[in-house]
């Protein structure tokens, strides 16, 4: 494999990772602050994509579509938080898993009820189509490059928000000691709703960005959800930094695994078998990575001791 292809694959892995981060950041924030495990996070991803597709079809503007995805997912997040999630904070994880599993059923089938059973159309805007030349003669999709940059910008903004702003201080306080923020006079209920809405908006935003180069369909959030869980478990639940490192690790492992493993097996097996075995192993690679990390650090890379 040529080095140019390898660099391109690494970029692809980075892009995949950055996208996963948008999902994982919300999940990990929600867990860190509220102690809630939210399986319905994938549904918010889906809602973002559907909102974007609808608005894009009506207005033709990609930026409006992105704004709609943020808004729709945040609103859905607020509604879900107020109606359901709020009652789950002091429950055990089992109740949370089950209730949010029920939410997935409702969201998925409800979306199908409203939008029908066929995938929707959502495309990248013309001004982001085509590819660009990067140094060393690497040709790369402009849209994917944009996703990487936007994702990194969002990550940076999140770090800044958490380390510098008032709400960030409250979030950090909430992660350390839930009773303390009450004592500080913070409106906990409002803070929780805000954090949930923020997480939801990030997921919806990711859904819209990815929806433009994927199929916008019911159930699109589930594979991403499971990957995002793998990410935050690897990174350490509750840690934004962990979510970032975990995302990049998972993105790289998955992408490079898919492209390198079959070639690797090809060195000592016949090509058809190598393709199949390599692909099988590649599809399991991130789970193996996760098991490996937990073996040595049962609380993830940045999950404390």
């Amino acid at each position, binding site marked *: 494999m040529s080095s140019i292809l390898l660099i391109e694959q690494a970029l692809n892995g980075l892009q995949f990772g950055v996208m996963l981060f948008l999902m994982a950041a919300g999940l990990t924030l929600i*867990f860190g602050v509220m102690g809630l*495990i939210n399986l319905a996070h994938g549904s918010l991803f889906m809602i973002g994509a559907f909102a974007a597709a609808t608005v894009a079809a009506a207005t033709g503007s990609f930026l409006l579509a992105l704004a709609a995805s943020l808004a729709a997912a945040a609103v859905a997040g607020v509604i879900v938080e107020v109606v*359901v999630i709020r*009652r*789950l904070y002091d429950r*055990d*994880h*089992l*109740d949370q*898993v*089950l*209730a949010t*599993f*029920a*939410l*997935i*059923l*409702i969201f*998925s*089938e*409800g979306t*199908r*009820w409203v939008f029908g059973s066929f995938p929707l159309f959502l495309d990248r805007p013309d001004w982001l189509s085509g590819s660009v030349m990067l140094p060393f003669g690497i040709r790369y999709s402009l849209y994917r490059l944009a996703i990487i940059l936007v994702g990194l910008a969002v990550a940076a903004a999140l770090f800044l928000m958490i380390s510098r702003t008032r709400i960030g201080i409250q979030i950090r306080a909430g992660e350390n000691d839930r009773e303390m923020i009450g004592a500080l006079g913070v409106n906990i209920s409002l803070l929780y709703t805000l954090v949930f809405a923020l997480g939801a908006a990030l997921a919806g935003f990711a859904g819209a960005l990815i929806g433009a180069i994927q199929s916008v369909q019911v159930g699109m959030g589930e594979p991403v959800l*499971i990957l995002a*869980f*793998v990410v935050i*478990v690897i990174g350490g*639940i509750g840690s934004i930094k962990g979510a970032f490192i975990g995302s990049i690790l998972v993105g790289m492992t998955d992408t490079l695994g898919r492209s390198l493993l079959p070639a690797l097996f090809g060195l000592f097996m016949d090509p058809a078998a190598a393709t*199949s075995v390599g*692909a*099988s192993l590649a*599809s*399991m690679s991130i*789970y*193996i990575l*996760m*098991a490996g990390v*937990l*073996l040595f650090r*049962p*609380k*993830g890379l940045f*999950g404390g001791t």
Partner: protein
Amino acid sequence: MRRETILNFSLLGLLFLFPLWAWVADEPFLITLATRAVIFAIAGVGLNLALGFGGLVSFGHALFFGLGGYAMGILAHHAQTYVPMFTWPFVIEGTTSMPIIWLTAIAVSALVALGVGALSLRTSGVYFIMITLAFAQMFYYFAISWSAYGGEDGLSIYVRNEFPGLNTMDPIQFYAICYVILLVMLFFVFRLSRSSFGLMLGAARQNEDRVQALGQVPYRMYLTAFVISGAITGLAGALFADLNRFVSPVMFDWHTSGEIMIFVILGGVGRVLGPVAGAALFILLEHSLGGVSDYWHIYLGAILLGVVLFARGGLFGLIAGREVAHD
């Protein structure tokens, strides 16, 4: 008699009488439906041991359900095609004998549960939930791409396996087998919950420090419970595959894990017969809601949500009240 005891016996009585009635009324499909409920109940009884008694929230029990299914599928497949499974270092032939298949399913599931549990139990809480999910996904993707045994298409066996002295293709006889197995498993779990091990496992769930101060190691208690739990769910998987005469990677899917969990919670966590009530209720819901609307998942979701939010303790909690400490 306590209300929970009454509920227990009515449930078992219902599961005895209903198929009998269906048989008399010549409604074989209702028997099949009841068989499904009973098999799901066995899977739930298995999970309940880890989840209810040990407090281990496994989101990966589909792994054992699937392993049991594939134990059956692979053995029967080899028996039907007359191709031995191994020829080296010694010959292992397939089989269509249910008891042998069950033992294999139990052994394989227990072995995998030992490995998976040994790793997963190093973690706890959400990490445990997620790592068990991840292990099940690993097997799911493996099963999909394992073309020797059908991959995603799964494996069909055309006739049910054999049980000495019974015609397993007759719905009521196959039901009888499953029902008896359910009773045996319930009895076993009932005794276990009251045994030395059960008492200490429950203590570990409530307070690990206490168990350590008594000279016991919670990890070992958990691992043992996880292995037994996996083995029972594996047995249910073998029965389920025999019911459908078919096995596929869907049995490994994470939705399956979720469903087994639903049986346990719908019925009542930590009650010996909770999963039985839960599975029966689930089948009933699936069957009646499916006719209402194409979008019946919405209603199923809403009902589930209602149970979690407002009816803690599931069906048992609703009817029999808070669990009474037993001695």
